[in-house]
């Protein structure tokens, strides 16, 4: 957090340092409310006007054993007065509610960074659970950091004394006390959180009072004591003018689908079986039934995709969402949708694999599954958002393509996008692309597999339309008539037609744009959630004068038509992915370019610094 200007705080008299951006990480037990605390800090900073980017990181267990290492839950926020694209490589401040949190997260903290630790929880049992031989708050092992040990339980307990709460209930508020401290540290307004507390607990006045008091007390404590010699101010970011809100990827995804449904004037039918990190899309869509949305929690993923296909056949917008293991189960049915050439969107919110893997961590390792994870030649379109708010656009795009081309479309998000958030300039509905569905209604000349000349798509002829009665299914179809056909030449033709139909989508999607010079030494090619880290890394390399450019693919199948040509303008191509080289394989095979991968499969997003290093090695 490079300081820019310094002034004296009017109230405390202590120094206030103006900085460009800061990164703070809250960490504690699963039960300590860290996700909530992080979200409050995020919203406050967003409303305050910073650019933000967040990274929640929580265990697969609901409430892993108190004090244990696997039970640690974290939430990182990067907030800035400039454009930022990632949650930050290294936090400047770590709030550690217990020894386990300290142990798990300390290594990420910047050298000399601030540790705010709840000293009340550094008791022998907790220290042992975290694997500490001695108390790090006392044994000098934190000498490389600025340690602020705060007896949170004690202070918070005292602050709430007047309310006569049970100790347990009072203790539950200590995260707000900690939040108050950080608000002072970064000169944040209390109002957004105060009004959130008010709205949330309006029916439970005791809790309302307790949380309010805890927050204020934490703030005042930092203000009055000499805990910190300085505090910081991160000014409003120079974001483009407009109305903003903070949005997570899963919210944006749900909104994008709703927007598509509204623009297409067809009801959305969302069929899903709960799975981390996709469940929140179901939860979100279920709340908006007044948009004509029906949500169906199916008995399993196969039922979900089957119902979505059925719904599409019936003329609604069939949508199913899941994560990798669920996609595996849906793959047979996706083949059916390919054969029957029905619109269908499959949202895969990728997580760490293989198998159950790392359910709450992020990864990009399902691209090849989306492309090839079915029997036979079974092409589908694939799109992938690059940022949390970008999920809106690509969700919308998924349905634009699915309905236009009568095809299944994969929407590949991931755990990082899903739960991460950023400020979103709310688009005006009028500016959304105009898209429409045209059902076939004329019986004259109707054939179920008659194809549109441009898109090769077949007509969408829905039950209830007189004269268009027809039968479709998973057996090979005769072109045009749609009758079952075992004819060898017809099969060959249909296999190629289905492939060609997907290939033609390339004419209906934007060309890739290069970030930086249109030619040069190194081109960095990314896709999906790595956008922020890649772009930031490339930008800083460019600022250092290196001949590096980047491009980011949001359309993975088909690839944009100009990609080959762009690739050819660079000496070397680097493809960073959170997998072992999936897009890399496609690019090498397709364009015969000796592209090189940079691969990390750690369940976490890239750090800007590691990408810079990797790019540096290519130069």
């Amino acid at each position, binding site marked *: 957090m490079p300081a820019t200007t310094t002034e004296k705080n009017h109230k405390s008299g202590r120094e206030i340092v103006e900085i460009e951006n800061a990164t703070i990480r809250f960490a504690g037990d699963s039960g300590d409310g860290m996700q909530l605390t992080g979200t409050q800090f995020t919203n406050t900073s*967003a*409303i305050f*006007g910073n650019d933000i980017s967040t990274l929640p990181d929580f265990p697969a267990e609901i409430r892993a054993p108190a004090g244990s290492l696997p039970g640690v839950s974290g939430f990182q926020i990067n907030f800035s007065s400039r454009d930022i694209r990632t949650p930050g490589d290294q936090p400047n401040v770590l709030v550690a509610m217990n020894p386990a949190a300290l142990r798990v997260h300390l290594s990420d903290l910047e050298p000399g960074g601030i540790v705010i630790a709840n000293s009340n929880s550094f008791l022998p049992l907790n220290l042992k659970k975290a694997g500490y031989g001695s108390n790090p708050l006392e044994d000098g092992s934190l000498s490389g950091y600025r340690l602020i040990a705060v007896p949170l339980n004690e202070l918070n307990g005292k602050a709430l004394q007047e309310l006569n709460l049970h100790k347990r209930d009072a203790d539950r508020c200590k995260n707000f006390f900690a939040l108050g401290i950080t608000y002072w540290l970064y000169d944040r307004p209390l109002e957004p959180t105060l009004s959130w507390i008010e709205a949330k607990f309006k029916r439970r006045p005791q809790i309302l009072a307790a949380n309010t008091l805890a927050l204020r007390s934490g703030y005042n404590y930092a203000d009055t004591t000499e805990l910190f010699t300085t505090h910081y101010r991160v000014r409003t970011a120079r974001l*483009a*003018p407009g*109305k903003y*809100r*903070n949005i997570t990827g899963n919210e944006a995804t749900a*909104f994008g689908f*709703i*927007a598509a449904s*509204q623009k297409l*004037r067809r*009801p959305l*039918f969302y069929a899903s079986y709960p799975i981390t990190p996709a469940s929140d899309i179901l939860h979100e869509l279920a709340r*908006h*039934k*007044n*948009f*004509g*949305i*029906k949500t*169906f929690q*199916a*008995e399993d993923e*196969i*039922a979900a995709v*089957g*119902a*979505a296909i*059925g*719904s599409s*056949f*019936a003329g*609604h917008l*069939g949508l199913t969402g899941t994560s990798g293991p669920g996609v595996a189960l849906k793959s*047979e*049915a996706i*083949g*059916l949708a390919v054969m029957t050439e029905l619109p269908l969107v499959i949202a895969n919110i990728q997580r760490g694999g293989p198998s159950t893997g790392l359910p709450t961590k992020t990864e990009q390792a399902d691209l090849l599954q989306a492309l090839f994870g079915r029997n036979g030649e079974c092409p589908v379109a694939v799109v992938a958002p690059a940022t949390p708010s970008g999920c809106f656009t690509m969700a919308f795009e998924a349905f634009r393509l699915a309905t236009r081309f009568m095809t299944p479309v994969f929407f590949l998000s991931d755990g990082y996008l899903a739960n991460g958030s950023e400020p979103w*300039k*709310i688009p*005006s*509905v009028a500016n959304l692309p105009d898209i429409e569905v045209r*059902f076939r*209604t004329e019986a004259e000349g109707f054939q179920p597999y008659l194809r549109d000349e441009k898109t090769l798509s077949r007509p969408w002829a*829905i*039950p*209830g*339309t*007189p*004269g*268009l*009665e027809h*039968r*479709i*299914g*998973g057996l090979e179809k005769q072109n045009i008539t749609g*009758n*079952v056909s075992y004819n060898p030449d017809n099969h060959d033709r249909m296999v190629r037609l289905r492939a060609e139909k997907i290939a033609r989508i390339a004419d209906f999607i934007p060309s890739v744009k290069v970030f930086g010079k249109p030619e040069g030494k190194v081109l960095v090619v990314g896709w999906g959630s790595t956008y922020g880290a890649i772009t930031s890394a490339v930008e800083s390399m460019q600022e250092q004068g290196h001949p590096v450019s980047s491009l980011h693919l949001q359309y993975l199948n088909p690839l944009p038509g100009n990609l080959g040509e762009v690739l050819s303008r660079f000496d070397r191509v680097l493809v960073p992915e959170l997998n072992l080289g999936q897009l890399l394989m496609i690019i090498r095979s397709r364009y015969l370019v000796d592209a090189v991968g940079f691969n990390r499969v750690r369940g976490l997003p890239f750090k800007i610094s590691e990408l810079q290093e990797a790019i540096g090695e290519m130069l």
Partner: protein
Amino acid sequence: MSHDGDSGRKGAAVLPMRRRDFMSDQEVRWCPGCGDYSILAQTQKMLPDLNIPRENFVFVSGIGCSSRFPYYVNTYGFHGIHGRAPTLATGIKASRPELSVWVITGDGDALSIGGNHFMHAVRRNLDINIILFNNRIYGLTKGQYSPTSEFGKKTKSTPAGSIDYPINPLCIAISNEATFVARSIDVDVKHLSSVLTQAAHHKGVSFVEVFQNCNIFNDGAFKHFSERGFRDDRTLRLEDGKPLVFGRDRDKGIRLNGLKLEVVDLRREDSEADLLIHDIHDPDPHLANLLARMDYPDFPVPLGVFRSVAKPTYDELMEAQVQDAISRSGTGDLERLLNSGDTWVVK
């Protein structure tokens, strides 16, 4: 909500329809002599009488000989994948409750690979008709035993005899609280047609098991009770509100003895008074369950409607939640949605 209505209601056929209106132009490709032909014929005959516009029918199936059925019916049709017809039907019916949705399935399709979807479609009381063609064999894959095959059955995959205890489809349906449960047989076309019609009229899930002869791989599976000579003695026609009487001379009946059923010889006992009276509307499924477990030779094989009770359907409940949301919060407004939550303005 703001969407256009679906085009379902315009232009229904004006003239009364006939059987041939429901015959598609596709050549029927079952083996000569297959019981499926009869079920197809009875269905095509019955459909015109339902007074539903032809374009509002959707026949959905899985995979199997039986699942070729939709190709032959001139309505909308979806030949799905193995075991998944109920899932397709769920999407169709839940999206468009005005459609008349029929699931055609086999004993393998519905009870082996598709057992879970079958169970859940039934328990949700989705307003669809599920017709299970039970030939107690896998036809399309050329003769392996199925979940309804008898214990010890020798087939290609079980040369030493199967060791799976068979499933009773009716019991499965009933334990999932199916609101309409019936059984018929391919060779009794009048009975079949009547049962199918009743299924069609039931609101909620209708489950019909049809005994169907596969003359290639399991010929005569039902003939020990269904052949004309002794059919009346070995089957029991269920009639609502009537005592359970059977036999060519209607000389045998069924009564309850404690928790069990027993056959009574009406020639020896003086009256029908203590015979069980069939009651398809009993909200409790106990009678249906008892009847479903009756089997030859200890008992006659019951045919007809076992149970028919009213309960709100999944599709109507789902639609009601949408309407309710609209009346409570107004038709969804996208602009408002996008602008919901904490917002701020950058100038």
